[in-house]
């Protein structure tokens, strides 16, 4: 077994960034599996892209905006917005104390 690309600490750091709680078993498993994947995707180094412009989107659209004053059809009412939450207080989302 060669040295792992990602250390246990790095796995824990990534899990922290992504707000995931991993068990010891998961940490070991993902460490191995991410190594396997990272080793595979390194094949892109074989391609010269020094003069290539990156693609963000395949659709040929630029600066898609709403017209001023257009109706916002995506809006939800307070009742709709709260319809799937577990905890509400005074018609607002209730969260645990942060400070």
């Amino acid at each position, binding site marked *: 077994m060669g040295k792992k690309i990602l250390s246990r600490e790095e796995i824990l750091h990534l899990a922290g960034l992504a707000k995931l709680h991993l068990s010891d078993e998961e940490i070991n498993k993902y460490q191995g599996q*991410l190594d396997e994947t990272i080793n595979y995707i390194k094949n892109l180094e074989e391609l010269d892209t020094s003069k290539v412009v990156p693609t963000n989107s*395949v659709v040929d659209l630029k600066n*898609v905006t709403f017209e001023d004053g257009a109706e916002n059809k995506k809006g939800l009412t307070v009742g709709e917005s709260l319809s799937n939450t577990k905890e509400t207080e005074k018609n607002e989302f209730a969260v645990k104390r942060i400070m």
Partner: protein
Amino acid sequence: MLLGKTLVELKELIDSKEISPDELFKYFMQRIKKYNPKLNAYLTLNKDVDFKNSGVLGGIPLAIKDNFCTYGLRTTASSKVLENFIPPYESTVTARLKKENAVFLGKTNMDAWAHGSSTETSDFGATKNPWDLTRVPGGSSGGTACAVSSYLAPGGIGSETAGSIRQPAAWSGVVGLKPTYGRVSRYGVIAMGSSLDCPGPLTLCVKDAALILGVIAGHDSMDATSSPRSIENYLEALKQKKSYTIGLCDDYFEGLDRDVLNAVEKSIEVFKKLGFKTKKVKLLSPQYAISVYTIIQRAEVSSNLSRYDGIRYGNDRRSFGDEAKRRIMLGTYTLSYGYYDAFYKKAQKVRTLIIEDFKRVFTEVDFVIGTPTPITALKLGEFEKYPFFGELMDKFNEPGAMAGIPGISLPVGLDRNGLPIGMQLMGSYFREADILNAAYLFEQETDYYGVIKKGIHNYE
């Protein structure tokens, strides 16, 4: 006798009053009650249905993949995170189907968050392949593919990020169309890879695919990435008898099971008989598209799944399954400080190369032919042995998905184990009408060698 009737045929029966929409709905509900317990194609059945005969799809029952938000009807993306989520809004795709008075039988199973190619990563149990209950139907739109193949729905909606319509269509033996990215609105589809996601139909025939595409395609102000280009009359396009040039690329025939290879080669002969020309072409190896896809899709997953905080809706992040966590972890890695240029930006650059590659080839030929999947349906549990294996299984779909081009999967026979084999045609941007036209000519010539009919008659 309703068994096996296509959407177009059922519509005629409704229009001539030989059957009413509620009778038709009950017919499918009875079949679902009988067969769904062993197939697990549906997660949630619809009870609140309004029957109307008018509209392009008036009274036509459809199966909807569970990542399309349906107003008032539970939508889970097959994840425990959303096990009780009742959408307060409707996706554009389902809204357009409802506007034409289609009725929804229910929501179909999928890989959780559409992460997978087997429908096994569903938090609500795997869907079974109707051809062999010990095998997977493919995925991630495996529930819809299974429902259509076993006639628990006469047609349905799936979505693709890279292969999630075409691959289950191939493994379950039905027709699956992945449109051009931006042709069909993503609004209200639970986001997975936002620069890739693409809704499309799974059906029993090409006419049905054309019918549904005509309803769901077109610009949507709710999705800023949807194309303003006007849509074609896809059904009308089937009436023309055109001749096309098909591109043959060696890389797309590499590593195929011998039965799959033989079936695809036989399909090429059918197209030649229909007057099509063939031409050898060269494309970038799919090996690179696998990497580009893995990097960009995981990055978009880690971003899209960051919204699940358990506060506004759904359960908290402890409810994520194994595959979602693995993908979030890799996406977080490739987007994180110090690795962004090496992975994400590099992948975006190679994505440009893939796009240019297809654009060049499509000046020489109309389509590139191949298969959506190098082998036929795997046994339940086989995917789990190889975490990265699913990506290798989708290697023929990932180049087209990264480029955003359309493709169709058609059944072209059975392998030595009696499992369906798929063939696919990929075309250039917004050439859906031509893809459907070529597929329709193939259908008329072969009737898919009886595969679709046989699949349905396994569930009399």
